[in-house]
């Protein structure tokens, strides 16, 4: 594929997959961080 | 034995008092059957081809509306706890409940589907396989409904509907196929036999699974 060429089919698949993969990484990370910080907050108070 | 006839009578009484339990599906069925010609086409040739599938799908969907009733009310008012405390055979009780639910939510629709044959221009030779396949196929669907109802028990969860579709797909295919066969002068008895086999095979398994699912809520 040429770099200058834009194929909407391919790039929509790429962007959707990229978006979902990012979600899959950051959702659990946020949850872990929330749970760990909850403990820290409890200890402070 | 007295115990189970008592439960049977009680269930019949409750369902007959609750008019929505049997009028609801009937109204749903009538509305959809009369909307199909308007929404699709009033051309008899088109409707004739679609009729087997349309009737079967409508029956399936109206069952989908009513399966939540099987256990959710008993859960809300605590009857299930009393059933569990009674120490009686729970699968027999569940069977009674499914049977009564079938009588009230499916049987009226099956009787009504006779008229839908005229409304959707299904040729008359399709009537017999339609009624037989519905009579044998809908109990299986009620069984799936009971399992889904027992799993989600009183809570509105997507699990019930999400389980219902894949499970009832084979039944739907066999049922509509039987009608199409008879319209093309092919012997449809093998489909009916398969539907019967599915029902007999699944009955104990699903009963066992539903009882297990019910007990999970009291653990």
């Amino acid at each position, binding site marked *: *594929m040429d770099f200058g060429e834009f194929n909407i089919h391919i790039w929509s*698949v790429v962007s959707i997959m990229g978006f979902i993969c990012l979600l899959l990484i950051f959702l659990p990370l946020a949850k872990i961080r929330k749970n760990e910080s909850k403990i820290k907050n409890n200890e402070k108070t | 034995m007295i115990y189970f006839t008592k439960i049977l009578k009680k269930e019949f009484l409750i369902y007959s008092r609750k008019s929505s339990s049997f009028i609801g599906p009937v109204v749903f069925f009538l509305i959809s059957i009369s909307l199909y010609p308007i929404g699709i086409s009033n051309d008899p040739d088109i409707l004739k081809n679609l009729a087997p599938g349309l009737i079967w799908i409508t029956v399936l969907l109206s069952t989908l509306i009513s399966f939540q009733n099987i256990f959710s009310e008993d859960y809300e008012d605590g009857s299930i706890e009393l059933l569990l405390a009674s120490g009686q055979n729970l699968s027999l009780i569940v069977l009674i409940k499914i049977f009564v639910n079938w009588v009230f939510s499916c049987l009226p629709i099956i009787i009504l589907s006779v008229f839908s044959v005229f409304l959707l221009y299904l040729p008359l030779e399709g009537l017999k396989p339609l009624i037989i396949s519905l009579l044998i196929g809908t109990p299986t669907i009620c069984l799936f409904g009971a399992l889904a109802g027992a799993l989600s028990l009183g809570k509105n969860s997507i699990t019930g509907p999400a389980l219902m579709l894949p499970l009832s797909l084979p039944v739907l295919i066999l049922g509509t196929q039987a009608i199409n066969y008879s319209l093309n002068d092919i012997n449809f008895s093998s489909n009916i036999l398969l539907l019967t086999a599915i029902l007999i095979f699944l009955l104990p398994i699903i009963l066992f699974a539903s009882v297990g*699912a019910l007990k999970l809520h009291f653990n």
Partner: protein
Amino acid sequence: MFQILKNFYHKLGSYPWFYKISGKVIPFVGVFSISLIVISSIWGLFFSPTDAVQGDVYRIIYFHVPAVSVSQVIYYSISVAAAVFLIWRMKMAGVYIKSLAPIGAAFTFIGLLSGAIWGQPTWGTWWVWDARLTSTLVLFLFYLAIIGMQSTFASRKSADTAVSIITLIGVVNLPIVKKSVDWWNTLHQPASISISGESSISSEMLIPLLLSILGVYLFVFFTGLLFMRAEISTREQNKEWFKKLSSNN
């Protein structure tokens, strides 16, 4: 040998051990899998040759095939976990099912969507009701059912048991659905469009495809660990070991 396996099984069932080990493994697997996906994507998108028949659109294969294959593998793996949970009551199996189900659902969704987007320019249709597509849709529904089941039970253990039952129902039901749709299709009019044409694939295309499959599998391993950690951190919030661990960080 057996003793080692048994020890490993017991360790795998222990939340603190898993939490500690997964914390160490995650960064490496994450970096490795993401870079694999990036490399294979760039290779596949820009450097592999254009397909003679389909043109450039075929490059969706580098996303579609890994997603579909991993979505099925995830389902088989969680049904094994479901059996393990029901037979040996291993708590970690419940965590595994709950954590992998959303990942499986996500990849099934990607598979369905990329398949539709791929099908439109090549076969002229977004969707065909054949056995493979229908059973993938059903697979997606089962993932949704598993995810939806979590909230209906008060007790974690009951929820895990119910989810295991649904998973096993699915693993029995999926081939039945596939067979019956196949049968239905052969009896109905033969489908005008056939998707099964397997063309031989040249090695220049195959290598990035294999790389992308490997990358996605590793990515699932990586996110699976992440989700399991998140689930454990929710379940074990009030446990001593977790409090000690997170206050040390």
